[in-house]
């Protein structure tokens, strides 16, 4: 997930040759039924989960079983230098490969670079009677943010999935949207009832993060960071609970407050 690279460190007026751990970023070309669907810049781990989650939140698949085949392959390039970034591809066949016509698009990892092709006016509403506690939100956020990789590199987003029995998974990626897709993919592959889960995040809760929760029917998303007006707008319409700035003794509940009890 990271490589130690040389760098010049400037510190208090002096420049010193040094090194630092830098997080890995690789392009992943995804093909669905023989057609290029997207190229995502991702951290090279849990790629099957990423592709599964992405296809699910884009409604390319409605359930895990709609995927007939998923192959992750490294592209061989005989001229490639040892230090060059690997090129990875994911090829997906759905159960009925010729019923799907998929538009090509490129997802750029990071802030606000990507848009879904799912019609924003037709987003599903959350179907869940989950009620959680303020104390639970605080503890799952604390559990999420423990990251050795983040400490080393400072360049990683963390997204967690928590159920009635606690942590289901915590996944790191260079992009928080990628990490959320990986979390959702993980949930699907492990048969998790997502309507009973809470997603936690280290970064900003954009409308895209909210949209993915709606598509996966995840009722609560909480973050250490901020949210956006569009995300709040979307969440209000669909009954999603958005909680921002979760810190040791504070948090802002922007939408769906009826789902959060305070028994402290």
């Amino acid at each position, binding site marked *: 997930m990271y490589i130690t690279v040389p760098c010049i460190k400037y510190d208090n007026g002096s420049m010193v040759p040094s090194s630092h751990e830098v997080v890995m970023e690789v392009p992943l070309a995804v*093909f669905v*039924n*023989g*057609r290029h669907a997207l190229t995502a810049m991702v951290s090279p781990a849990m790629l099957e989960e990423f592709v599964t989650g992405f296809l699910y939140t884009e409604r390319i698949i409605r359930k895990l079983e709609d995927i007939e*085949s998923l*192959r992750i392959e490294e592209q*061989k390039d*005989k001229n490639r230098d040892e230090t060059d970034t690997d090129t990875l591809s994911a*090829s997906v*066949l759905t159960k009925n*490969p*010729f019923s799907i016509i998929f538009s090509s698009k490129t997802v750029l990892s990071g802030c606000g670079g990507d848009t879904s092709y799912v019609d924003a006016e037709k987003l599903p509403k959350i179907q869940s009677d989950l009620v959680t506690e303020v104390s639970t939100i605080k503890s799952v956020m604390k559990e999420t943010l423990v990251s050795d990789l983040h400490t080393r590199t400072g360049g990683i987003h963390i997204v967690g999935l928590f159920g009635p029995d606690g942590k289901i998974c915590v996944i790191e990626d260079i992009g928080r949207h990628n990490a959320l897709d990986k979390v959702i993919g993980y949930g699907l592959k492990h048969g998790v009832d997502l309507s009973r889960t809470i997603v936690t995040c280290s970064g900003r809760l954009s409308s895209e993060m909210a949209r993915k929760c709606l598509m996966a029917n995840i009722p609560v998303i909480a973050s250490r960071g901020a949210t956006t007006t569009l995300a709040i707008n979307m969440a209000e319409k669909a009954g999603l609970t958005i909680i921002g700035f979760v810190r040791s003794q504070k948090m802002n509940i922007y939408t769906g407050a009826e789902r959060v009890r305070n028994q402290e």
Partner: protein
Amino acid sequence: MNIEDCLADFQIPQHLHYMDSAATSLIPEPVIVSMNEYDRQYRANVGRGMHRLTRVATQKYQDAHDTVSDFIGGMEGTTVFTRNTTEAINMVAAGLDWQPGDRVVTTIMEHHSNLLPWLRLRQKGVEVNILHPDSGGSFDIDTFDQAITADTKLVAISHVSNVLGTVQPVREIAAICKERGAYLLVDGAQSVPHFHVNVQDLGCDFLCFSGHKMLGPTGTGVLWMKDEVISPFMAGGGTVDDVDIEDVTSEGYTLTEGYKRYEAGTPHISGAIGLAQTVKYLESLGMDTIFRHEEKLTERLLKGLAGIDNVTIYGPQDTKNRIGVVSFNIDRIHPHEVAYLLDERAAILVRSGDHCCIPLVKYLGLENGTVRASLYLYNTLEEVDLLIGTIEEIARMM
């Protein structure tokens, strides 16, 4: 799916009583559909392009290898698609680095396809040691223990005899091979279709079998190998990573890894896809269920034939260590005539003659060979009773 339900997937049994599955099995509708789907909807060459159809076809073709490999527990090795068992065995015979003085141990029970490729090696100075079974077609394991010596390079044996239906003690032979450093090649043409075969359990180095005997398409077969120790039979399209014609010190090309290096040229793509569908079909029924069904049929057949005067059964007389490949003769009637009469009188289709095992039928003193009824999952007890009844009529007639 229940085994009785599968009859709806086959057309021929609605009209005829097909008992020649050891030669070629019937093919169920879902397998035909999967092959037609390729030709109609995504026909393209594999591994050689960027367009959507070639991508879909390539992925289906790769997945087919994985499906078949997983079916035999062979994910740790290399699963190569061939035309049939014969081609698979020949690839090993042609691909190993033979030296004068090397020994091959095989048996007189073998189908010609698992005998002639080894006999041919005699021209290279390879000694071929051919073992003989008892009259029931079984071997004492000591026979192998004595025959497999330190200079034995390979032991080649059929898992199940295509004449007598006898199951051979492959695991025990594998243990001896491992101890003496010999490769073990198993001809699984008659075993893989009928019961669960796992290469890790067997302990073999090569497993060869045919798709067309296990409900799959003709022109499909498999060579599974534990390690890629053989040189490719053919070189050509799809087998290389690089070609450098200026490099005169070597062959001028670098072979790719995995099954691709052994599959030169455009393969039988629809066949591969059909073979994978076949495996899924068999798995949906369950290999243990198939085995038990055939065991029931075989038991009835052996019992019925044993009760008819002038009929001789060859091979094991009960279902222990055998499958539903049953060879027999009626005194004073040529096997071909019996087969003809079964067809004309009762629409029962069986095989007759030497079954590509001339050395064995000679060894058993059967100048004209045998009549062979071979059963599969689509056969029924009623059909077996019809066979017994018709044989009884023919035997009485003479």
